[in-house]
């Protein structure tokens, strides 16, 4: 339970109808959460209190389900509706995918708050900030540090604080419904 990485890292995840449904719902939740809280701003920096959904989805339903949900939610819902799609584009898509993929892959158990905070709150968030800042800087739209720091400010609090709490609270319900991805893999 206290391990920070799982005994065996599982890269593959078979997509059935349940995985597809969970991806769709995760994408809508993530995109809607990001878009509906765009008015939560400190100066020009808009906060993303629902960013934790990507981490939670990755931890509960697996790296590919979480990653695709975050990618679709961020890129095809939030970015398109906000008009940011052409600018954030590739960096935002890969970064958000990784933000869910990394904790999904490396968190051994959802109730292990240290692992959720480490892989989701710190590593995953740093990766998304790096990709978004790096892409925007590569395209020459803004300096790297501007978007890197903005993404960190927006994503660290929800991923570091809220994600471990939600994971711990909701895990039993998810497991009872037979939706936890590691259990499903074992059953298969």
């Amino acid at each position, binding site marked *: 339970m206290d391990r920070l990485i799982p005994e065996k890292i599982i890269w593959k995840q078979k997509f059935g109808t*349940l995985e*597809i449904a969970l991806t*769709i719902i995760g994408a809508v939740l993530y995109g*809607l959460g990001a878009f509906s809280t765009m008015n939560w701003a400190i100066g020009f920096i808009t906060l993303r209190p*629902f960013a*934790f959904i990507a981490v939670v989805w990755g931890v509960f339903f697996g790296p590919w389900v979480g990653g695709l949900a975050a990618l679709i939610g961020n890129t095809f819902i939030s970015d398109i509706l906000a008009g940011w799609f052409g600018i954030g584009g590739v960096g935002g898509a890969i970064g958000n995918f990784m933000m869910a993929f990394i904790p999904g892959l490396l968190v051994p158990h959802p109730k292990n708050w240290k692992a959720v905070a480490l892989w989701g709150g710190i590593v995953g968030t740093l990766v998304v900030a790096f990709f978004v800042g790096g892409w925007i800087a590569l395209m020459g739209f803004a300096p790297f540090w501007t978007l890197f720091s903005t993404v960190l400010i927006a994503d660290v609090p929800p991923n570091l604080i809220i994600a471990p709490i939600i994971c711990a609270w909701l895990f039993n319900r998810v497991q009872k419904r037979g939706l936890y991805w590691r259990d499903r893999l074992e059953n298969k």
Partner: protein
Amino acid sequence: MAFVLQMLELGKLRSPIHSLDPRAKLLWWICLIIVPILVTNPFILLAFTIWIWIMAVLAKISYKMYRFLIITYPVMVGFIVLTWPFFYPATEDQFYFFRFGILHWSLEGTIYALAMGMRIVLALTACTFFVMTTDLMGLASAVGEFMQNKLRISYMYPLMVISSFKFLPELSGDYITITDSFRSRACDIDAGSIVQRFRKTIPVAIPLIDSMLRRAMRISIALELKAFDVDIKDRTFYEKYVFTWKDVLFVLTGVLAILFSILAIVLGIAKVEMYL
């Protein structure tokens, strides 16, 4: 939230632009993403932006698009324009408004920042025009058909995107119901300081996620009942999209924009550096 639904509905209007093939609009939009990557001259970028504003009149979305962009421009561009001058390389020949240690703000840096802001303005305008004139579900369906029939890629990926748009109104309804029920118990998620609002997301998130999981299970059952299979790659499509000469012409306008940008590079007028 109502704005999300409004945006999705705008794509279903009837106009000469709306009636074009969604794939044509997608290609045009990709061209308009490439333009601000090639060009940094703010006047050329402004000219392209005005061109899209004029096309918005033709697409009958001018009022809603202008109203949206007037709010969006400062939020999206302001922060970047304000921070760019601090990162602009400091040299002795610049005119400085202030210079203190590594912190500096020069006239040249400001001009450069405005040019960078103009690039984002063009990209934002093109994206907004594209979203407001395209039925996103139609686009995903057309792209899905192309991917399956030409590239042999499973319909699963477009389905996830299409369904996300399809469930957006339903899930936003759930979100509003949950936040309203909390509001009726004196817990307004949109009220209070940032820290207070941040804390309130937890009690809202629990029932939200829980109800969504139930919905996911229902969607999964519905997919099973309709015999959806990830491995099937010969699915038929209800709506057929055909490229006409109008679509080709529309894509050509985007290609012309790129050619004009390349010409500007050749002539040495594409970069903001010519004003610095």
